[in-house]
């Protein structure tokens, strides 16, 4: 074991910055990171052991003990719950004889929850030994557990067809479906790899930036920052060593469009990175991609090799002397916060994914302190088309303030969940008609960090003028219990995913959750609703977007569905501690075989 670990550390030249890769490689080789080797690993990297523990314990998928020959991570996002996750979970537990959060006594099967894995249009889904299983049912789970007991390798457990498109290719072989419902005019405009890059090198780097600025392209990762401006800021730095990062962390529950882009058009994304590299004179690019998408690894690595062979990556690329640019893939290890750009950089430097204080911004001091551009997968893909077809072509699509198209991830209660590329400017009402949704009670726009809108707000339009979004829409039918199923799930998500650095974001969501439970248990009073709103306010004092939005599920649901809360609270009293004596002493009563008299 020791020699394996040593070899891995050597492979990365004892570089502390490559700690994520070192840990991921160790885990891949041994199934876990043996705790008794922590001191040795730390010594090899010249850090203290606690500094190593600090990183390992941050990431959901890194483990210091074996988690079973088969490790099941069953997604617990809201859409999984809507598609009968409970039944799937119960079947897993019954068939394997172990409860979630544990490993069976024979060490065969471990069952664990995990936050959204990017499969909201094919839930319930699970990752088993890095292989994706989607559309799970109790029937299917019984087969899977039976296969485990026979010792079958996970790769051979598939009984469904592969998912179609590149998912069925030799290098992926996954049951994951693309569910491309609508091919739009930008991403699906006919494409030859290299055409955007070849055109860009006929332009001056400054003109490439100018063209992107003129296109009014704004970041498709959610925040909507103007892409050209970001590149220009980076270009202004005095530092000449620069980096291009592609943000493929895609952790916002209900979002899965980047997965489809990376499956069907990865070359376009990599080409967008090279164009950015040309524009600002960066020589290396890094794709930071979530651990959940490990099943794409071989395919993406191979795509990079193909591009190198085609001289679209590497040295003197696209025939331009002195234009060197290459890309490496950096996997994460399970942390939503690593999608936040500065946390992403920390993680890529082998540390905990804790957001940095700003200023300075990544374009000034980013990866290893050097100016760094971080763009979303979709943003970078669009860059290629803008360079190829011109900024005017792009601004002619969409609306005044929102140029071009958006790739939406649509899930929840509708007939056709999947991805849709549409021009900005459609109303939510249009979208619901497009996807076949009726009797809608609510729509979550932009994932848990976005807003929950009610039927009166369906005329609202997608676009930076009104609803600027990373593109996730989750639809809830009339029959859904919004507070219990949705708001609670989202609040728990933020509790699970906070990095824990800020006093506010570390503590407040948990306190809000307790209040919500009190209301759901029938102990709430009107004051509790007001407290929820008031107490959420301190979250705006947090360092990053996660904290800023962690109260949104509660705040926006109270804004738009206050009547649901009012129905739950007691009208006849204005104070209730929420303490239930009978419930609190139940266990001891049972143990002592006595009943309560109160």
């Amino acid at each position, binding site marked *: 074991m020791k020699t394996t670990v040593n070899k891995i550390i050597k492979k990365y030249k004892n570089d502390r910055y490559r700690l994520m890769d070192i840990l991921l490689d160790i885990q891949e080789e041994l199934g876990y990171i043996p705790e008794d080797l922590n001191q040795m690993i730390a010594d090899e990297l010249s850090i203290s052991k606690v*500094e190593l523990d600090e990183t390992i314990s941050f990431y959901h998928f890194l483990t210091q003990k074996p988690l079973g020959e088969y490790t099941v991570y069953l997604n617990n996002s809201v859409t999984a719950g809507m598609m009968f996750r409970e039944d799937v979970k119960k079947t897993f537990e019954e068939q394997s004889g172990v409860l979630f959060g544990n490993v069976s006594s024979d060490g065969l099967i471990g069952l664990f929850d995990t936050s959204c894995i990017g499969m909201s249009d094919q839930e319930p889904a699970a990752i088993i030994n890095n292989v994706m299983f989607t559309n799970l049912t109790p029937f299917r789970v019984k087969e899977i557990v039976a296969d485990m007991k026979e010792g079958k390798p996970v790769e051979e457990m598939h009984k469904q067809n592969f998912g179609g498109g590149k998912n069925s290719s030799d290098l992926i072989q996954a049951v994951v479906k693309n569910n491309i419902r609508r091919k739009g005019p930008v991403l699906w405009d006919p494409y030859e790899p290299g055409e955007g890059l070849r055109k860009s090198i006929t332009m001056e780097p400054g003109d490439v930036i100018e063209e992107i600025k003129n296109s009014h392209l704004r970041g498709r990762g959610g925040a909507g920052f103007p892409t050209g401006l970001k590149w220009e800021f980076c270009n202004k730095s005095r530092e000449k060593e620069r980096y291009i990062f592609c943000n493929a962390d895609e952790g916002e529950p209900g979002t899965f469009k980047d997965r489809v882009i990376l499956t069907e058009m990865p070359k376009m994304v990599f080409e967008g990175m090279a164009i950015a590299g040309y524009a600002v004179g960066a020589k290396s690019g890094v794709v930071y991609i979530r651990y959940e998408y490990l099943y794409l690894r071989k395919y993406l690595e191979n795509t990079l090799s193909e591009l190198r062979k085609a001289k679209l990556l590497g040295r003197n690329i696209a025939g331009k002397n002195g234009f060197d640019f290459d890309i490496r893939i950096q996997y994460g290890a399970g942390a939503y916060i690593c999608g936040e750009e500065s946390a992403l950089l920390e993680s890529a430097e082998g540390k905990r994914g804790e957001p940095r204080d700003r200023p300075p911004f990544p374009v000034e001091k980013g990866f290893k302190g050097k100016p760094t551009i971080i763009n979303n997968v979709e943003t970078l893909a669009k860059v290629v088309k803008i360079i190829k077809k011109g900024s005017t072509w792009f601004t002619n699509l969409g609306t005044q303030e929102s140029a071009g198209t958006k790739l939406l991830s649509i899930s929840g209660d509708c007939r056709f969940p999947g991805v849709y590329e549409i021009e900005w400017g459609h109303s939510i009402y249009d979208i619901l008609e497009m996807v076949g949704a009726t009797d809608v009670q609510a729509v979550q726009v932009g994932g848990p960090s976005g807003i929950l809108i009610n039927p009166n707000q369906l005329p609202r339009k997608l676009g930076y003028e009104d609803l600027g979004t990373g593109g996730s829409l989750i639809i809830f039918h009339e029959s859904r219990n919004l507070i219990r199923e949705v708001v609670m799930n989202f609040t728990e998500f933020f509790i699970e995913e906070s990095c824990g650095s800020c006093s506010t974001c570390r503590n407040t969501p948990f306190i809000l959750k307790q209040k919500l439970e009190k209301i759901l248990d029938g102990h709430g009073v009107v004051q509790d609703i007001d407290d929820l709103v008031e107490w959420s306010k301190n979250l*705006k004092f947090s360092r990053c977007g996660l904290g800023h939005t962690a109260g949104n599920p509660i705040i926006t649901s109270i804004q738009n569905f206050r009547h649901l809360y009012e129905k739950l609270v007691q009208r006849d009293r204005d104070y209730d501690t929420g303490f239930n004596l009978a419930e609190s002493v139940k266990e001891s009563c049972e143990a002592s075989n006595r009943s309560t008299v109160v």
Partner: protein
Amino acid sequence: MSNKVKFVIDGKECQSDEGKYLVEAAKDNGVYIPTLCNYEGLKPKGSCRICTVKINGRLATACTSPVHEGMKIENYTAELNEVRKEIIELLFVSGNHFCPACEKSGNCELQALGYRYEMMAPRFPFAFPIREVDASYPRIIKEQNRCILCKRCMRGIKDEDGKSYFAYKNRGKDSLVVADRKLMSAMSPDKAKEAMEICPVGSILVREKGWDEPIGTRKYDNAPIGSEIENK
């Protein structure tokens, strides 16, 4: 070398060196901005959020924001002060703080802020977390019930090679600050004292030491925290 810049805090004209962190720049002008995780001489890490002010209308932590010419800063406003008080309450309810029995009482910045912001009973429910006192190191005791995860010890206490004695563990509400066994076993008495002093609360205690000063004469016993800046 550095340029002087002018800025305004709550209507008061101030002057300081360009790029100086706002907390320090304000201090130069006799303006107190409350801090907890900040420690002079250490690289700031805005984690407690209590120094949050509004710079040109936007929320920002004063300990991490450099001053520039013409900045307009809101500091002592009802809105900001209320949230600061909330943050103090959050830190109290998320740990187990029994001040009368605490070695740091009177020298504790959290306690002093509680007084300054007139915290009576916290509005939030007490979490009463179950945390262990870690007394396994030769020089110090790590009192986990009182740690507010401010990261001062992590940033300030390092060995000659720059390795940290202290680090975070886990994430979110389960986060803890823990100490390195190997480094701790060789910790010098001076280092231990430094660690205790850097900690704003009573979470790092030097072994076999109670207190030097009796209650009534300690740092914040007679004047509120911040008054040393405001009365200068």
